[in-house]
């Protein structure tokens, strides 16, 4: 039986907001398993884990669990259901950029064959678990889709991010209610493999059912791990990585550093549950998606195969495209609006939010400072906005643009309805692109200089050799002449 300690956080978030949460509507109905859709879509590049390469060819028959995409981070994505690869064609992807990517299209069939991995049995090494995470396609299921194995290393604390602080989202809540055992098991085996001493779960106080389920699961777990549950007040954005670390551990991660550099590992509960299943040989093939929003006729959570088209998800919520005004993937603050609807969901699709966004007229900034009050990292969004509007990226960077977590709390409180977060997302991406371009230019300068130097050196050496050879031959000639003159025959 695992050891458990429950407490309320002693720390307070700077800033933050308390919006209406709209969570109850999608948690009233039980989790529903979605029927296998006719077609599944797997974008080669945007499935998470970096740029990818297709491992299959058109006409091939795949089973549930067959590897189909190899990404450059090493993560392998698997088919979520069995069927025929009907084509690999460029299609829109489920990403804020609404970009186009080569997409593998699987036409599913009735056969329920599985192509799973061998279950692992303890003891295993770190390398084996990392390889298993790669093969099972494990990426962060919280939203960012960062390959999980890249965070693992010398850590002492595992923080489980069960805050789910954004309004409308209940996917993690449902997962904890129905499968707390897998989460706890995943945390335990990760802790055992990487010798993590401390497991801390941060959960907001509006998820009492999930909290109960977790408590039961921890108390019945056959493990000697020590768990701590820290209950957080419901305040957005307490589930931001740095914000959660502050609220649970009281530790502040320095700007520009990652929590893993401080020995802290942060995982979404879904990722740990997926890891637990991966050890049993099952790659990620399904995930829980919240179907919600004022225009969703029957809001609920469904367990859907990865690659399910959005239209099928809407149909599961008894809603069709004609009756919605906007479709957002993710929450209302951090999510992005999609333009194409015949797109497959990915591993990071946690919510389909359909509602009338009701845009309000944008007015000039009156520097009221409401945004600064709401900012969880103490930025001055009004000064940042001023810098970005006047194209002064350097000044924005000086104001701390790099420290913005893009939580959009400022958007919500702005009385002038200025889309501040969109400005900051744009500015941060520009800053990143500019920095990278500068780094590339510096590298190119170095390579050019060293090549020029090398060519000069080679030319000089060649010249020296030629001179030496010439001198040698002149020498030899002289000696021959001397010999001739010395003894005339």
């Amino acid at each position, binding site marked *: 039986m695992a050891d458990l300690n429950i407490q309320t956080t002693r720390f307070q978030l*700077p800033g933050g907001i308390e919006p209406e949460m709209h969570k109850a509507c999608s948690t009233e109905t039980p989790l529903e398993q979605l029927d296998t859709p006719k077609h599944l879509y797997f974008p080669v590049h945007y499935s998470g884990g970096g740029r990818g390469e297709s491992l299959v060819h058109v006409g091939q028959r795949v089973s549930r669990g067959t590897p189909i995409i190899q990404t450059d981070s090493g993560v392998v994505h698997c088919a979520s259901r069995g069927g025929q690869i009907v084509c690999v064609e460029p299609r829109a992807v489920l990403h804020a950029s609404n970009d186009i990517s080569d997409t593998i299209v699987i036409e599913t069939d009735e056969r329920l064959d599985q192509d799973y991995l061998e279950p692992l049995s303890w003891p295993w090494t770190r390398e084996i678990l990392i390889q298993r995470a790669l093969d099972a396609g494990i990426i962060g299921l919280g939203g960012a889709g960062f390959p999980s194995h890249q965070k693992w290393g010398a850590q002492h604390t595992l923080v489980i991010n069960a805050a789910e602080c954004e309004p409308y989202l209940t996917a993690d809540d449902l997962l904890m209610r129905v499968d707390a055992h897998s989460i706890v098991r995943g945390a335990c085996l990760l802790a055992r493999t990487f010798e993590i001493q401390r497991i801390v779960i941060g959960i907001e106080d509006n998820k009492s059912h999930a909290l109960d389920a977790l408590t039961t699961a921890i108390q019945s777990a056959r493990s000697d791990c020590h768990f701590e549950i820290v209950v957080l007040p419901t305040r957005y954005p307490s589930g931001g990585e740095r914000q959660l670390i502050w609220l649970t551990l009281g530790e502040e991660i320095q700007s520009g550093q990652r929590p893993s550099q401080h020995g802290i590992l942060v995982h979404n509960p879904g990722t740990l549950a997926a890891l637990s299943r991966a050890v049993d040989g099952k790659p990620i093939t399904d995930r829980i998606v919240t179907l919600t929003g004022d225009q969703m006729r029957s809001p609920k959570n469904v367990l859907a195969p990865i690659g399910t088209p959005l239209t099928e998800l809407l149909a599961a919520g008894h809603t069709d495209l004609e009756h919605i005004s906007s479709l957002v993937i993710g929450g209302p603050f951090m999510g992005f609006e999609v333009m194409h609807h015949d797109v497959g969901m990915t591993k990071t699709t946690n919510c389909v939010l359909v509602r009338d966004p009701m845009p309000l007229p944008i007015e000039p900034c009156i520097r009221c400072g409401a945004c600064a009050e709401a900012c969880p990292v103490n930025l001055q969004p009004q*000064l940042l906005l001023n810098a970005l509007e006047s194209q002064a990226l350097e000044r924005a960077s000086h104001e701390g643009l790099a420290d913005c977590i893009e939580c959009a709390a400022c958007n919500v409180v702005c009385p002038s309805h200025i889309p501040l977060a969109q400005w900051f997302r744009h500015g941060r991406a520009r800053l990143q692109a500019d920095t990278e371009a500068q780094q590339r230019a510096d590298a190119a300068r170095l390579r050019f200089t060293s090549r020029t130097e090398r060519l000069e050196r080679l030319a000089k050496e060649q010249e020296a050799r030629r001179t030496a050879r010439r001198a040698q031959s002149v020498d030899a000639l002289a000696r021959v002449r001397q010999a001739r003159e010395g003894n005339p025959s």
Partner: protein
Amino acid sequence: MMQRLRPQSTSAVMYTVLIALCPGAVVSMWVYGMGVLFNMLIATVSAWGFEALCLRLRGRPILPRLSDHSALLTGWLLALSLPQAAPWWLVVAGVGCAIVLGKHLYGGLGHNPVNPAMLAYALLLVSAPVSMTTLWVDPLNPPEITLAWSAFLGIAPDGYTSATVLDLYRTEFIGLTQPEMQNHPLLAQSVFGVAAGTEWVALAYFAGGLGLLACRVITWHIPVGFLGSLLLLSALFAIDPDTATPPLTHLLAGASLFAAFFILTDPVSGATSPRGRLWFAIGVGCLTYLIRTFGQYPDAIAFAVLLMNFAVPMIDHYTRPRIVGRDASVRGSGGLS
């Protein structure tokens, strides 16, 4: 759920401030007569007129900007700052200065570097000094409505105006001892020993200001910083009651409470972080004390506010809070993580 109380749009913010001004305006009318109402009416009309004209000239949409109530607020603030017996042309010229020179020449709402109402007040004070200093209504002898109307038209006979209390301390009270000062009718009939009538106006503005605090339109930093520094300085130098203006007079006479809650709290031209607002207000408080004590003007707040407005970029620069994850001393470009 504190956010629910906060006004959700710019026009709602302005609207709240307008409503919060009402108690002070009503008590003003009661104390100083109907001249205040006439001033506010002509200020309202001319504020709308000048704003619409400027928007038209600048090729901007008129109705949405007009309905954000910012021009109206500027007009009201100026009308309530002017002498109660001011003629109509003074108010119209002032509102014109505020809207045209103070706001639209800099790019409209959100872009003005100084408080438009105070800019107009200062301009009027230097260009029409006689009207601005002699037309203050005697609160003990407020004019009838007909007299107020002829004052508004600029054709009133003398006799109902008087020096303000702050003027008394600078001029008539020099050389008097404190008991002698108390014999002045303005002080003798006063409840707080400040100035009959005036103090009630100030307290009405204070009530309105508390309302703004409750609605979270403003924070405590500016009123506390301004009133605190003003009181502290006047208390420090009030050791000799025969020469110095008492602290309570600084507080309740003149425009101190009005300015603390309604003028200094203009977010556009003021400092923007809480700490910055505190310093901004302390600066205005100190300058107000200095100008009231050593200057020759009826009140000092306009110049103090304007001077501190110019210091706002510097205050903003030095008072930003520590960004989470950074040392207090270190700012500037860090890489993205």
